[in-house]
């Protein structure tokens, strides 16, 4: 046994031990810029369930003319790929060197680590806070570069570049669009049961770069992204004629500018954007009973869609814009129904489960995620028109607010973990679950942004 083989053998043992750990806790500390507070995010990955993903190594990027950087691209990419559940990243202790260019990649030695591909790169200081970030995705088996690219960015945008690199890697190796350079909106609740504080926040999809877009002492519910990713519609409780009631607002997340779009007597709730961004489906009770209406932004007009004495709420548009799914109590406990936007009869979709509510379509329109109660507590469930059955995806009991990732691969939802509200994700086939925990308070009401955004600044 030569020296290298010995090293590899030790490495294998280390690797095996790591894989035995059911949970590899990745602790990421984020120092935000300027006035932002120190924030801490933990992503708990059930590593054991990830074995079987694409084996890949993300080599720390070489720094040229840069002292130290807070946000290291390799760290960010590694967490992204682990988070997707489709990759199995190699622990750094067993790396075969730390190449930053093609000619220094020792293919034979990398082959021994069993990875299919490695990612290498550099961060070069161009001066005046400008950085050049270069990366290459290298096929270890074929001994060639798969893709390489360079980005010139302001130092403050390095996380964004890292997420874009993750998207490219994901796209190249899985054949599907990545969703790392996206955002999530959610509600953070702090304080005591009797004195609570609600913050509507947006963050990168990995939980970093948190910005509060609205603070209130009253609950904030149902944030939802406009299709262009610039606006959030949400429900907040506000005093109207001396009574605190739910109102629907639309807010531009970049400028902070907002306007109420529904403040009728009774309920104003459950906004859902049409795919063209011109309208929102809403639940209003101004005519005496919670019914679904379509509100058109340009004309400020309302059109009633449902007519039933039972509760109709939680509308969500199909991606083709032709129909709306919603929950209704017309059979007793809520079940999911579908109604043509052009008008017509509502058709009941869900028949298994005591309670099926809060439906929303997958981006491809083939399935509908919802909360289902089938005797095991409230869980994320998936219905498809093909199977016509609601299948439980999670094993928790207090799940709420499921939201598809814009590439349709994952579902983020709110649940309880150790008596606290947390966000979690589950793959669309239910095979992989992860928990995201923020340091302070309880987190709820997640909404994943769309892929395409025209503008990106706060």
């Amino acid at each position: 046994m030569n020296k290298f083989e010995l090293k590899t053998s030790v490495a294998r043992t280390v690797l095996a031990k790591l894989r035995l750990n059911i949970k590899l806790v990745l602790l990421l500390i984020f120092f935000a810029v300027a006035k932002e507070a120190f924030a801490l995010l933990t992503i708990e990955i059930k590593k054991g369930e990830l074995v079987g993903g694409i084996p890949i190594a993300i080599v720390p990027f070489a720094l040229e003319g840069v002292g130290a950087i807070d946000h290291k691209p390799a760290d960010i990419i590694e967490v992204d790929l682990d988070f997707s559940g489709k990759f199995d990243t190699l622990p750094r202790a067993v790396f075969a060197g730390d190449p930053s260019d093609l000619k220094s990649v020792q293919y034979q030695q990398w082959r021994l680590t069993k990875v299919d591909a490695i990612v290498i790169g550099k961060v070069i200081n161009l001066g005046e806070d400008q950085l050049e970030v270069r990366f290459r995705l290298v096929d270890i088996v074929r001994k060639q570069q798969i893709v390489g690219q360079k980005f010139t960015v302001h130092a403050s945008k390095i996380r964004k570049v890292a997420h874009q690199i993750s998207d490219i890697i994901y796209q190249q190796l899985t054949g599907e669009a990545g969703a790392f350079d996206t955002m999530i909106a959610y509600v953070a609740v702090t304080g005591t049961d009797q004195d609570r504080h609600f913050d509507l926040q947006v963050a990168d999809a990995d939980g970093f770069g948190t910005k509060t877009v609205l603070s209130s002492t009253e609950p904030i519910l149902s944030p939802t992204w406009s299709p262009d990713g610039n606006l959030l519609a949400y429900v907040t409780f506000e005093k109207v004629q001396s009574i605190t009631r739910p109102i629907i607002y639309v807010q531009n997340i970049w400028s902070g500018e907002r306007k109420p779009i529904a403040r009728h007597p009774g309920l104003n709730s459950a906004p859902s954007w049409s795919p063209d961004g011109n309208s929102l489906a809403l639940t209003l009770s101004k005519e005496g009973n919670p019914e679904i209406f379509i509100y058109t932004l340009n004309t400020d007009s309302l059109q009633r869609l449902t007519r039933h004495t039972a509760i109709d709420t939680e509308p969500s548009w199909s991606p083709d814009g032709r129909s709306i799914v919603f929950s209704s109590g017309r059979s007793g406990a809520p079940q999911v129904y579908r109604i043509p936007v052009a008008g017509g009869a509502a058709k009941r979709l869900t028949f298994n489960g005591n309670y099926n509510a809060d439906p929303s379509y997958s981006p491809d329109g083939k399935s509908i995620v919802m909360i289902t109660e089938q005797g095991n507590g409230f869980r994320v469930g998936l219905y498809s028109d093909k199977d016509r059955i609601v299948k439980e995806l999670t094993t928790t009991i207090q799940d709420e607010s499921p939201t598809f990732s814009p590439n349709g691969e994952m579902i983020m939802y709110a649940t309880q973990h150790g008596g606290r509200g947390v966000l979690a994700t589950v793959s669309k086939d239910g095979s992989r679950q992860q928990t995201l925990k923020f340091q302070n308070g309880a987190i709820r009401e997640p909404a994943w942004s769309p892929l395409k955004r025209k503008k990106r600044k706060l």
Partner: protein
Amino acid sequence: MMRNLFSYLVIIGCSIVIAGCGSRNVVYSEPEVEFVSGTAGSTTGLNDDAITTSGLGDGNSNDSASGVNTYGDLLGMRVVYFEYNSSLLSLASEAIAQAHAKSLASASGVQVILEGHADERGTREYNLALGESRARSVANVMEALGVSVSRIQIVSYGEERPVAFGYDEAAFALNRRVEIVYQ
């Protein structure tokens, strides 16, 4: 006996009889048996001098003996509770709503807010609608007894304002409610 006390005549074809019934064509009449007179203002806790409980005759003594609440007791109750996923009023809840309706009928100018709530099970938005529906059930009883629609405000807080904390039936039962709040 409960049925006897709170049974009502359904009058088809709305009317002139009861002011403020608007377009409804089904109304509840006055209860056949008057409410038992309670200890009036002191136990109603309404904190509003404009509300009186005077003018009610004696009720059925059998009902009192069996533990049925008096009018005053009923007025003192400002919260009605519901079954899981339901916005149907129990007979006891309906009696409370009726007592408050009578009180409102005799105290013009007083406004009431009906705050609907739900327990935390299920989705937030459905629970918001459920709270609304529960408050609407109480409002329907009041409106049928002649309380003007304009004097009743409905608001739902869904599962957002629990009074009991804990993931168990004891807490759930207390949170599935409509609070009757006088202004």
